[in-house]
C-alpha cells in the first residue's frame, strides 16, 4: 500500500519521454530493455489471468442467478427439496461497503488530528517517537488485531456499550433500532472499529507526508498574515492537500475493503443484510475465508469466486480513483 503511494507520488516528477527512441542504444541496452519489458508484461499477464480466471470461475453463479446475485440476501449452500440451494451476495456486499465506510468515517478525523499534531504542534523529538509508533501500528499483522478484537474488544463492548444501550433505549425508537442486536460484541460496528484502527496509521502517515510537502513559504505567508496556528491549518494547509488527501483516504478504503482476518474474527458472520449498526454481518472477504474449505458443491465454489470478482472490481475502482487523485496537486 505504501509502495503504491510512493509510486503515485514519484509519478509527479516530470519524466523523460522514455528510452524507446533513445539514440545509440546498443545491444546490451536492447537486452536490458527486453528484460524490463517482459518483467512488466508478466505483471500485466498475471493481472489479466486473474481477472479471466475469476470471470470463468464465477460464471456459473452469475448465469444461474443473474442480477439477483447482487440483490438477494439468501445464502443457502445446503439445498433441500423445499429450500433449494441459492446464493445472493447482497449481505456481504453491503457489509463490505458499510464496514469500510464507517471505518473511514472514524479514522479520517483521527488521522488528520495525528498528522496535524505531528507536523505543526509537536516538539520535534516527540514527533519522531510518535511517528515511529504510528508506523509500528501499521506493521502489526491483521490476525493480531482480529484476536484482540474477539477476546478483548468484543466482550468489553458487549458489556459496557451494547448492554446498557439495549436496556436504556426504546426498542421501537430510531436509536433503539439503530443499536439493536445480540449483545455479544461481534457485529458490524466493532468490525468497523477494528478496521478503523488498522487503516489509521496508513492514512495518518500519508497525511503527515502531504503536510510536510507544503512549501514552507506558504506557511510563513499565512502566519505572516496574522493567522493563528489553527487558522493556518484550517484555511491554508488542509485546503492545500485536499485533493491528495482524498487519494490517501481511498488508499485506506482499499485496505479496509479487502481486510479479511481481523474482520472474520469479529463481524459475527451472518449472511443476512444487517438490520442495525450492532447487528452481525459479513463482508465479501470474511465470507470467502469462512467458506472456502467447506465449499463442496460446484455452485457454492462458483458463488465464492464470483464474490471474489466483485471484491476485485470494487477495490480496483477504489485504488484507481486514489491513483487519479493522488499527486495531482499543483501550485
Amino acid at each position, binding site marked *: 500500500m505504501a509502495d503504491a503511494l510512493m509510486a503515485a507520488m514519484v509519478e509527479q516528477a516530470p519524466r523523460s519521454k522514455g528510452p524507446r527512441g533513445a539514440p545509440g542504444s546498443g545491444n546490451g541496452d536492447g537486452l536490458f530493455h527486453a528484460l524490463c519489458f517482459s518483467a512488466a508484461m508478466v505483471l500485466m499477464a498475471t493481472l489479466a489471468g486473474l481477472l479471466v480466471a475469476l470471470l470463468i470461475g464465477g460464471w456459473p453463479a452469475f448465469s444461474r442467478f443473474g442480477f439477483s446475485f447482487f440483490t438477494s440476501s439468501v445464502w443457502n449452500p445446503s439445498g433441500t427439496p423445499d429450500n433449494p440451494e441459492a446464493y445472493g451476495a447482497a449481505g456481504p456486499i453491503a457489509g463490505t461497503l458499510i464496514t469500510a465506510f464507517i471505518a473511514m468515517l472514524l479514522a479520517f478525523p483521527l488521522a488528520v488530528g495525528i498528522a496535524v499534531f505531528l507536523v505543526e504542534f509537536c516538539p520535534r523529538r516527540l514527533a519522531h517517537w510518535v511517528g515511529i509508533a504510528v508506523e509500528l501500528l501499521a506493521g502489526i499483522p491483521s490476525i493480531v488485531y482480529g484476536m484482540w478484537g474477539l477476546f478483548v474488544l468484543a466482550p468489553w463492548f458487549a458489556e459496557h456499550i451494547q448492554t446498557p444501550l439495549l436496556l436504556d433505549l426504546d426498542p421501537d425508537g430510531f436509536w433503539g433500532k439503530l443499536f439493536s442486536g445480540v449483545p455479544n460484541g461481534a457485529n458490524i460496528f466493532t468490525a468497523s472499529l477494528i478496521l478503523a484502527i488498522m487503516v489509521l496509521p496508513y492514512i495518518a502517515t500519508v497525511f503527515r507526508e502531504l503536510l510536510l510537502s507544503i512549501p514552507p*513559504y*506558504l506557511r*510563513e*505567508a499565512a*502566519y*505572516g498574515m*496574522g*493567522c493563528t496556528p489553527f487558522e493556518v491549518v484550517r*484555511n491554508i494547509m488542509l485546503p492545500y492537500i485536499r485533493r491528495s488527501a482524498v487519494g490517501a483516504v481511498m488508499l485506506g478504503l482499499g485496505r479496509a475493503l479487502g481486510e479479511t482476518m481481523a474482520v472474520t474474527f469479529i463481524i459475527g458472520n451472518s449472511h443476512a443484510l444487517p438490520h442495525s449498526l450492532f447487528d452481525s454481518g459479513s463482508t465479501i472477504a470474511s465470507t470467502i475465508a469462512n467458506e472456502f474449505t467447506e465449499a463442496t458443491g460446484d455452485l457454492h465454489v462458483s458463488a465464492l469466486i464470483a464474490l471474489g470478482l466483485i471484491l476485485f472490481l470494487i477495490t480496483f475502482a477504489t485504488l484507481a480513483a486514489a491513483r487519479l487523485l493522488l499527486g495531482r496537486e499543483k*501550485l
Partner: protein
Amino acid sequence: MKFEISQEEQPTVMVAPAPEERVLDVRGLDFYYGKTRALHGVDLPVARNRITALIGPSGCGKSTLLRTLNRIYDLYPAQRAEGQILFNGENLLNPRDPVDPEASGSGRPRVGGDLARLRARIGMVFQRPTPFPMSIYDNIAFGVRLQRSVGKAEMDEIVERSLTRAALWDEAKDKLHQSGLGLSGGQQQRLCVARGIAVEPEVLLLDEPASALDPLSTAKLETALLELKDSFTIVIVTHNLQQAARISDYTAFMLMGRLIEFRPSSEAFVKPETEAMRDYVTGRYG
C-alpha cells in the same frame, strides 16, 4: 567574499537627522540560528510613513533582521533573537518590559505577546510570490476576515481599494473569482502586497519583493510602494541598489551581521561615510 576588514567593536555610523517618529526601534539586536550568530548588536530606527531600505551583500543578515521584526522566525524552534525591538515603545522580544511612554505611537493598542495580532499589524511580503490557493478575491478577504467580520459590500470595497493601491485592479478586476495562482509572477507579488495592506497594518515588511520580477513588473511594484508610503511604514530588503535609491527615504547598509551605516537615502548613495559601504555601492564587491 573578499572583504575582510575587522568589524569588531566598530560602531554603526548614524548620520543625522535620525528619523523623527519611530514606529520600530531596534536596539542591540543579536540573532542566532542554533549556535550560529547571524546578527551582532544591530541598532535600527524605522521612521513612520517612510520607506527604509536594507541593503548589503548576500548573507549579511538583512533578511534575518527583517524576519525578526514580525517574529516570523518563531516558527523555527532553533532560531532566537536577543535585545530589544520596540514597536510603538513596546518590546516585541519581551512583552513584559514596560512600554516606553516617550515613544511615538505608545498610545496605540499593545501587542502583548500575541504573535497573530503582531503580524496583523506588521505585515510581510516574501521574496517568492505566495498567493494562497484560493481566488484573487478570497486571497484579500481571507486576512480581513481573520480580524473582523465584514459584510459583502464592505468587503467588495476593501478588495477593490487594496488592489487599486497595489496597482493591480485594472489587471485583476475581471477575474476576481479566478485562482490567484493563475496570475503572472509580478501580478502575484502585487496581489501579496494588496493582501498585506488590506488588513491595514502599520508596517509592511518586504523581503526582496522584486527579485523574481521583470523590469516592468518591478516598476509597477515600486510605483505602488511609493503610493503606499502615505499610509504605511515600509521596510524593504533589496539587492537592487537603484531600487533602494529610487524609492527609499532611509538606507541601512549591513555587512556580516552588523549594521554598518544608516543614512537618509539622498546622501547614502552619493557620499557614503564608511569605506565598506562606499565599496559596496560602487560595486567593488557584491
